[in-house]
């Protein structure tokens, strides 16, 4: 699918096996590669040299709590569960993830909210 320009995020989805993914209002996904300074005596000019190492991915997503679906807490699956995020462009990001944080906030003036942080374990596949 061609990405032709700015896309409004109104059709994103998140699935997570046995996780709480109802009423998702937003998600973020971050990928990083470890950076290693490999500057050595052979680096003859004034610029440092780098290479990338391990790749890691993590993110957050926020949901409104509803009256029917049981929520889960951080660490509910210690070895990770299958996760798929779909952006508005139709691209999917999938892999296994562990839930490392879960914050529930209840305030009379706002809808009940739960915010999760997750950490990918193993590869993130983009399709």
């Amino acid at each position: 699918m061609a990405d032709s320009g700015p896309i409004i995020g109104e059709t994103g989805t998140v699935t997570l096996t046995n996780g709480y993914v109802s009423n998702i209002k937003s998600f973020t996904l971050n990928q990083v590669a470890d950076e290693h300074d490999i500057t050595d005596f052979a680096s003859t000019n004034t610029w440092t040299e780098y290479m990338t190492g391990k790749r890691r991915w993590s993110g957050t997503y926020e949901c409104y709590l509803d009256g029917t679906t049981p929520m889960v807490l951080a660490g509910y699956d210690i070895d990770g569960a299958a996760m798929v995020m779909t952006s508005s462009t139709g691209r999917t990001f999938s892999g296994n993830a562990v839930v490392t944080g879960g914050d529930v906030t209840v305030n009379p003036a706002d809808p009940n909210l739960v915010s999760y942080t997750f950490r990918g374990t193993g590869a993130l596949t983009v399709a």
Partner: protein
Amino acid sequence: MAVKMGYSGALYSQKRSCMNYANAATVITISDPSGGELDFALADDFSVECWFSTGGDKELVRKRTAAGAGYLLEVSSGKLVFTIEDTSTNETSITGGTSVDDDTWYHAVAVRDAATNDRLYLYLDGASDATAVTDTSTATLATASGLLIGEATAQDAYIGLARVYGAAVSAGEAASIAGGSIVSTLRRKLKGSWPLIEGTGSTAYDDSDYGNDGTITTAAWSTLTYDSVASPETPTGTINGTNTTFTLANDNVDLAGLVVISDSVTLATDGYSITPKGTLELVTAPSTTLTVDYRYYKMTLEAGGFQNWTVSTVADELDVSDFASGEWAEYRTGKRRWTASCENYWLNQGYAYDIDKRLIFVFYHDEANNKSLEGWGYIVSVGNTVVPSEITSGTLTLRGDDLVSVETS
């Protein structure tokens, strides 16, 4: 989309302090207020609420001169009795049907409904405990006597809270407040409220708008606000050598005093996990027998005036990448921990006294449908903000001790 608004939430915690009346001299005296808010005229509705535990007869709340005018809620001959008498010596009593002198905690509400039904009602643990009695009063009940919480006679008794409302508590409201809920319409009708949360000192603070603090004679504060099961309980669940999940008969279970015996072996704490709600998960399924000895807190009450709460759960993320992992790092989760913060509008002094104490907390995100997070936690900080032009507020910070569980019923 059935999203719930935050006003469906609430915060409850176990009540930690109460007054012990084993000493013959112990009594809480609230001087007769000049405004007359604790006196009631012929046509006035009013109600008296009390949490108590007693092994025998005991006066709970009295505003009555000997056998003269006023009102008295007591345990007499083992039953709850509510008596009112007017200044024309017309006395009306209502007696409960349940024996309550068995050293367990009960919630009592005595109601004088003068305006609508001209009856007395008695509720025990949120349910009617007696057939309504016709009120024979023809005059005011007012008396110059002070209000006494627990009379000055020795009894193996405890009182956890006493309140007087200027309203006839309905059956539905009696059930709500027995469950610990704050009913806003009743809250506005409070004439006096002595929650006995201080745990120290000789003053019982009145947290109603009237501020009629009580003077405690021979104060004997206690933290015996729990009940213990009469004998080790066999929890609900199939004992067949494969099932590992069981449910206790009571919730708000304390970690202290917990003894789990599976197949005649007393389990170490790493042999099971338990939630405050009473769900027991064993590492090894019992084949023949399972008994649990435990304490539980029936007196787990809505904490007043909270406007929000946040519970944060965190799982340590452990990098377990090895040579087989390839280019992508691998993780698993480790120890889990939780913290919480809560803000309130009422300056609840009890939490200041309870700092560094472990309590059971129930964080409802949908109270009407019993959906909550429940955990044991310590109050690690209490902050109060008092500004002339603003509502006085407080902030609690909690640190979980052991798990917080997701409860849906």
